[in-house]
C-alpha cells in the first residue's frame, strides 16, 4: 500500500459493520451460537437418554406399552437370573483376557515397528487395516474361519497332521468364548500398536544412550525407560480399550449371537436380546445400567492407577 493511500485510509471513517455482523462480534452471543449445535445434540441424544435409561431400568416398560415405576424389581429379577450372572462373568473375563492380549501383542508390535524398517509408512498403513474395516464385516470373516465344517484353520491343522477332526470353534461354550476373545484381540492389536508407537517415538534416544553407557541390559532399558515413559499414553489407550471391550456388542452378536446356550452373552448383547427383540425395554435398560458401575470402576482404575505417575511428577494436565 502506498503512503498516500494509507494516509487517506487513516482519516476515513471506518465503515460500520452491519447489525448482524456486530451481533456476531459480541463474544457472549458468539459463544452461545458456537456451542449450541454440539451441546444441543449431545444433550438431546446423549445426556437425556442416559437419564431416561436409568429411569427405564426402574420401570416395566415393554415395546408398545408405557411403563410404570416398579422400583428395583428388575434388578431383583436379574439378581436371580443365572444367564445375567453368566453375562456379567463373561463380560469381565472377555475384557480382562482381551485387554491383556491386546496390550501384550500390541506393545510387542509397536516395539518391532519402532526399529529401522524398510517401507515403514506402508507397513503402518497395512497394519491399521483390521481396525478400519467395519467390525461386523471382519467378524463375518471370522465366523467363516470358525466354521465347524469348512474352517480353514481346521483344514491347515489336519493337513499338517496335527488333528484328525475339524476343530470345534464356536459350538461349545468354552471354545466359543476363547474364539471370540481371539477375534477381539485380532481387531484390537492395530489400534494399540499404532498409538503406543506414537508414544515410543516421543522417548528421547539420549535416554537409551545414557542407559547403555551405564551398562543397562535390554530388559532393564525396557523396564526402566520405555515402560515408565509410555505410562501416560498407556493409561489413556487402556481406558478406552477397556470401556469399548466391556461394552462390545458387534463381534459377539455377529459371530455367536450369545450362543451356544447363552454362554457367550456379554452384558450388551443380553441387554439387546431382552430389550429389542424380546420387547422387555425395562429389563434391557436395567442390564445396560448395570454396566455403568463396571465402567466407572474401570475408568477410575486405569486412569488413577496408571496415570498416577504423570501427576506425581507435577506435570500440568492440560
Amino acid at each position, binding site marked *: 500500500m502506498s503512503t498516500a493511500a494509507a494516509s487517506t485510509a487513516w482519516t476515513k471513517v471506518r465503515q460500520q459493520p452491519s447489525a448482524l455482523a456486530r451481533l456476531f462480534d459480541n463474544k457472549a452471543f458468539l459463544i452461545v451460537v458456537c*456451542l449450541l449445535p454440539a451441546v444441543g445434540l449431545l444433550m438431546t*441424544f446423549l445426556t437425556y437418554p442416559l437419564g431416561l435409561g436409568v429411569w427405564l431400568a426402574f420401570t416395566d416398560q415393554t415395546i408398545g406399552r408405557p411403563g410404570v415405576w416398579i422400583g428395583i424389581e428388575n434388578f431383583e429379577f436379574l439378581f436371580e437370573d443365572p444367564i445375567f450372572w453368566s453375562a456379567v462373568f463373561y463380560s469381565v473375563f472377555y475384557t480382562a483376557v482381551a485387554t491383556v492380549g491386546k496390550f501384550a501383542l500390541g506393545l510387542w508390535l509397536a516395539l*518391532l515397528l519402532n526399529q529401522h524398517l524398510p517401507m515403514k509408512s506402508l507397513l503402518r498403513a497395512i497394519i491399521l*487395516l483390521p481396525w478400519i474395516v467395519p467390525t461386523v464385516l471382519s467378524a463375518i470373516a471370522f465366523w*467363516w474361519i470358525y466354521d465347524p465344517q469348512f474352517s480353514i484353520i481346521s483344514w491347515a491343522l489336519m493337513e499338517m497332521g496335527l488333528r484328525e477332526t475339524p476343530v470345534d470353534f464356536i459350538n461349545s461354550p468354552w471354545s466359543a468364548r476363547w474364539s471370540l476373545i481371539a477375534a477381539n484381540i485380532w481387531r484390537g492389536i492395530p489400534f494399540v500398536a499404532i*498409538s503406543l508407537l506414537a508414544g515410543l517415538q516421543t522417548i528421547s534416544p539420549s535416554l*537409551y544412550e545414557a542407559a547403555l553407557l551405564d551398562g543397562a541390559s535390554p530388559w532393564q532399558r525396557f523396564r526402566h525407560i520405555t515402560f515408565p515413559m509410555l505410562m501416560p499414553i498407556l493409561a489413556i489407550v487402556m481406558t478406552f480399550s477397556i470401556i469399548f471391550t466391556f461394552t462390545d456388542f458387534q463381534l459377539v452378536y455377529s459371530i455367536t449371537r450369545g450362543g451356544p446356550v447363552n454362554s457367550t452373552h456379554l452384558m450388551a448383547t443380553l441387554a439387546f436380546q431382552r430389550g429389542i427383540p424380546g420387547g422387555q425395554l425395562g429389563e434391557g435398560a436395567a442390564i445396560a445400567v448395570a454396566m455403568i458401575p463396571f*465402567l466407572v470402576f474401570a475408568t477410575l482404575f486405569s486412569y488413577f492407577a496408571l496415570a498416577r505417575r504423570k501427576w506425581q511428577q507435577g506435570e500440568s494436565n492440560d
Partner: protein
Amino acid sequence: MSDVAASPGNTNTASAAPEQMAWDSKTRRVVLLYVPLACFLFILLFPFYWMTVTAFKPNAELYNFAEHNPLWISSPTLEHVYHLLFNTAYPKWLWTTMLVAVASTFLSLLASTLAAYAIQRLRFRGSQYVGLAIYLAYLVPPSILFIPLATMVVQLGLFDTPFALILTYPTFLIPFCTWLLIGYFKSIPYELEECALIDGATRLQILRQITLPLAVPGLISAGIFAFTLSWNEFIYALAFIQSSESKTVPVAILTELVTGDVYQWGALMAGSLLGSLPVAIFYSFFVDYYVSSLTGAVKE
C-alpha cells in the same frame, strides 16, 4: 535395506541403535524382528485374504477341500458379486450407508468445529469444563444408550428412517471430532488472530478466513474418522431400522443375507468385501492424515 540401517552412520537415531552396538546384528535381527513381524502381518491380513478368496470362488470349490486347495482359486467367478448386486438390495444398502455416513459426518464436523473454536479460541470462564464434559461424553458407549434412544426415536416418529441414524451418530462423533479439533486449533498461533482483530476483522471473518483455512488438515482427519466411525456403526442401525431396504450394509449383511441354516458364504464374503472397500479406499487416500491424527489424538 537392513544393511543401511545397520551402518554406523545411522546409530544416533531411535532405539534400534543400542541393539546394533551390542550384537553382530544380522541373524539376530532376522530372528527377533523380521520373523515376528511377518507373523503379525500374516495373522492381521489373513482374514482379508480369506475373505477375498471366498468371494471369488465358485460354490463347487468352496465346499470341497479334498479336491481343491482352499487357499487358491482354480476358476475364479463373479457369480457371488453378481448375485449380490442384482438379486439383493445390496446397492440400496450401500447407498443408505453412504448417505447416513456423509450426512452425519457433515453434521458433526459443523457442530464440533464451532464448539472447538469456542472452547479453544473464544476462551470464556469455564470453557475448560465444557471441553472436559464433551470429552467425557465420548466415554459413554452406545451399548448403554440404545434402549432409551430406541424409545425416543419411536416417539419422535423417526423409527425406520435414515434420520434416526443421522441424528444419533453425532453423539459419538462430536466428542471425538471436537477433541481432535481442539488439539488442532491449539497448534495454530493465536497471534494470527490477534493481528486480524487489530486490523478490524470481525470474529466471523477471522474464523472463516484465517482459522478455518489453517485448520483444513485437522478438519480432514476429523472428517475421515467420523466417516469411518459412522460406516462402522452397528448397534443403532440394528435397533432403529426395521425395513429391509433402509438398512445399512453391516446390518443388512448379517440380517438379510443369512437365511436359514445354510449360509451362502460366497455371497456373505463378497458382501463383506464390497462393504469394506469404500472405507479402505477412502482410508488409503488419507492414510497419512489418519495415522498422524490418531497418534496426535492420543498424545494430547
